[in-house]
């Protein structure tokens, strides 16, 4: 416990973790678009999952009601988040767990490293966890001489290849079976020489590779999908059984959880356990979900630590127009339906949270200035909102963050770009029905201004494309006048 200053909510610190890219989105996207194999792999995988998701969502008659419930449970939780966290702490402690509070990535990494050291172990097994990717835990452990073994198949592929995750659910989505086969053949000790690229054979190779590790592991590190404030219960939702192995067999379990993952009551899970599997892998239910509460004598780890992480979440909560990004349950449906994500892949976003949700979450966790190009990484088509199981209005939030970016630059007396000014103006105009109607009529008047080129500073946009003719009348005018038609 170290003394700290009060003041503005802190954003995620620089120099640790994986929330910031080395390149801006447009530069990274340009590189990604040149990679034909990547685009083929992504197109193949995302179209398969889109079809599956639509099929299983259509089976649920009350899907829209469930989405509303998910949205309002999350909003109600955020409105009293501090109280739910205090209750969670109390319940976990009462059942034999130890709760730690980490303001940022550095503090969380220090806590986990010290906990592992205290066990005398120099290796841990890990359940796939976005949060520990976010804070760069594996690197911090490595610096302390502790080896972290990723056990999720896709995380294993990424780790063996010394690569970065490119998708929330399937971190190796950018690799096809042939590439995965080659990565295993090159980096996996003892892999059979005649390994094929049949997915069954690849899964079998991963099983053999990790089996001994699971059976002898003494310390595991996990994330959490949900935590129940009432009871202190933690949940991990998974498919392969690597999660069960890590949560059950070791003596010590360390769970790192973002503070936004808490929900008030057990009953709330009846909503999320319907929304999450159908939205993420397109299954009615994922193969395995584990729930545990503190320590149970004779069953599972006898030492349990829960690390509650802020790392920019409070800063996100402070923005009323942006806080619902914290409602995300990490299903990745918005990635799979996004035309931008499908073409550029996850790496271009520079953060462990790619795609539409990443474009609104990453800039809020780091401060908009550090991920300034992400709110522009979208065509605002709205597919992400329709797919989101908790109804996060990502398109509206993107426009809001673009405006925030412009405002912050103005405050620093730096000149915003023409596009940023335009977006701020659009946000102001679209926020009010009357303003929007006037703008539409104004555009119509522009028909009389001949020419296909915009004047500076907007000439960059028309350098490579023609300015379309504004319509003769706006939709609003047409709607108002339609009864007058014969």
């Amino acid at each position: 416990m170290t003394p700290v200053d009060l003041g503005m909510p802190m954003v995620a610190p620089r120099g640790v973790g994986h929330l910031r890219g080395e390149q801006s989105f447009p530069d990274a996207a340009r590189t990604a678009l040149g990679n034909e194999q990547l685009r083929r792999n992504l197109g193949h995988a995302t179209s398969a999952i889109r079809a599956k998701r639509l099929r299983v969502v259509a089976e649920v008659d009350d899907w829209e009601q469930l989405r509303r419930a998910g949205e309002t449970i999350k909003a109600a939780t955020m409105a009293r988040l501090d109280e739910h966290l205090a209750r969670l702490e109390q319940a976990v402690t009462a059942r034999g767990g130890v709760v730690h509070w980490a303001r940022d990535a550095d503090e969380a990494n220090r806590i986990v490293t010290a906990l592992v050291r205290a066990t005398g172990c120099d290796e841990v097994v890990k359940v796939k966890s976005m949060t520990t990717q976010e804070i760069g835990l594996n690197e911090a452990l490595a610096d302390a001489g502790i080896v972290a073994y990723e056990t999720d198949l896709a995380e294993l592929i990424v780790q063996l290849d010394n690569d970065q995750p490119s998708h929330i659910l399937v971190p190796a989505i950018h690799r096809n079976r042939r590439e995965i086969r080659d990565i295993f053949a090159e980096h996996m000790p003892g892999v059979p020489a005649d390994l094929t690229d049949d997915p069954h054979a690849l899964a079998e190779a991963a099983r053999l590779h990790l089996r001994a590790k699971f059976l002898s592991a003494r310390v595991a590190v996990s994330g959490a999908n949900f935590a129940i404030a009432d009871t202190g219960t933690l949940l991990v939702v998974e498919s392969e059984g690597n999660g069960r192995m890590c949560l059950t067999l070791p003596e010590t379990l360390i769970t790192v959880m973002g503070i936004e993952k808490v929900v008030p009551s057990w009953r709330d899970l009846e909503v999320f356990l319907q929304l999450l599997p159908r939205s993420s892998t397109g299954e009615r239910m994922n193969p395995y979900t584990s729930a545990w509460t503190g320590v149970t004598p004779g069953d599972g780890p006898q030492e349990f630590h829960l690390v509650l992480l802020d790392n920019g979440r409070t800063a996100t909560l402070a923005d009323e127009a942006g806080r619902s990004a914290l409602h995300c349950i990490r299903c990745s449906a918005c990635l799979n339906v996004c035309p931008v994500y499908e073409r550029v892949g996850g790496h271009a976003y520079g953060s462990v949270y790619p795609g539409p949700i990443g474009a609104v979450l990453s800039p809020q966790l780091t401060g908009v200035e550090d991920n300034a190009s992400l709110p522009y990484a979208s065509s605002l088509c709205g597919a992400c909102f329709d797919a989101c199981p908790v109804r996060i209005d990502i398109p509206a939030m993107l426009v809001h963050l673009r405006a925030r970016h412009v405002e912050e630059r103005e405050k620093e007396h730096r000149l915003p770009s023409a596009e940023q000014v335009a977006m701020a103006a659009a946000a102001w105009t679209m926020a009010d029905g009357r303003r929007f109607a006037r703008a539409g009529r104004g555009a119509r008047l522009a028909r009389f201004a001949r020419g296909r080129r915009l004047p500076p500073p907007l000439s960059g946009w028309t350098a490579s494309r023609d300015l379309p003719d504004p319509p003769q009348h706006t939709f609003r005018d047409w709607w108002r006048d339609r009864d007058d038609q014969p």
Partner: protein
Amino acid sequence: MTSREAMLSAVRAARGDGDVPEIERAYARTGSHPPGSPEAVALLVDRLFDYRALVTSVQRADGIVGAVTDALGEASRVLVPVGLPEGWVTDGVVDDGFAPGDLDGMDAVVTACAVACATTGTIVLDASLDQGRRAITLVPDHHVCVVRASQVVDSVPEMMARLDPTRPLTFISGPSATSDIELQRVEGVHGPRRLHVVVVVEG
């Protein structure tokens, strides 16, 4: 000020003092079929098949031992939890707190369950005496699970309402699987690769 105090006061300031929005629970709390009904049981069987679990239906409890024996096939070392009902397994090894390596030497495990959800094909274990600690249904490669009709509910809300969250819970929907290679589902990774469910229709 500790990190705990700093985080809690920062969260309090950030969330503001706005009203707590009302939670809309207009979704269905029960499914179309009553708990334990033949329709609910039939739906469960259908959904289990869909996820490539093996299923044997028996009419009454006296059919369990035969179905379990058939399901076990050639398995010679069969692990059972300490409270498995008498007569389900003829020659089982009772769990004695075996180390993970010893569990790995078992050919199969036989347990009961806490509840099953038909719509999603999900079976839940809650570590009661007839199910045992979590590790015994994880390490052996073959899990035979007996589900009685009275334990079958239609919907997820009904399933959750029957569970005690403070017990260690494992929700199982088919054998272990992965979608990590090109987002296509492949059965059989780290958990038991064979899940065989014995359903007791009048149980």
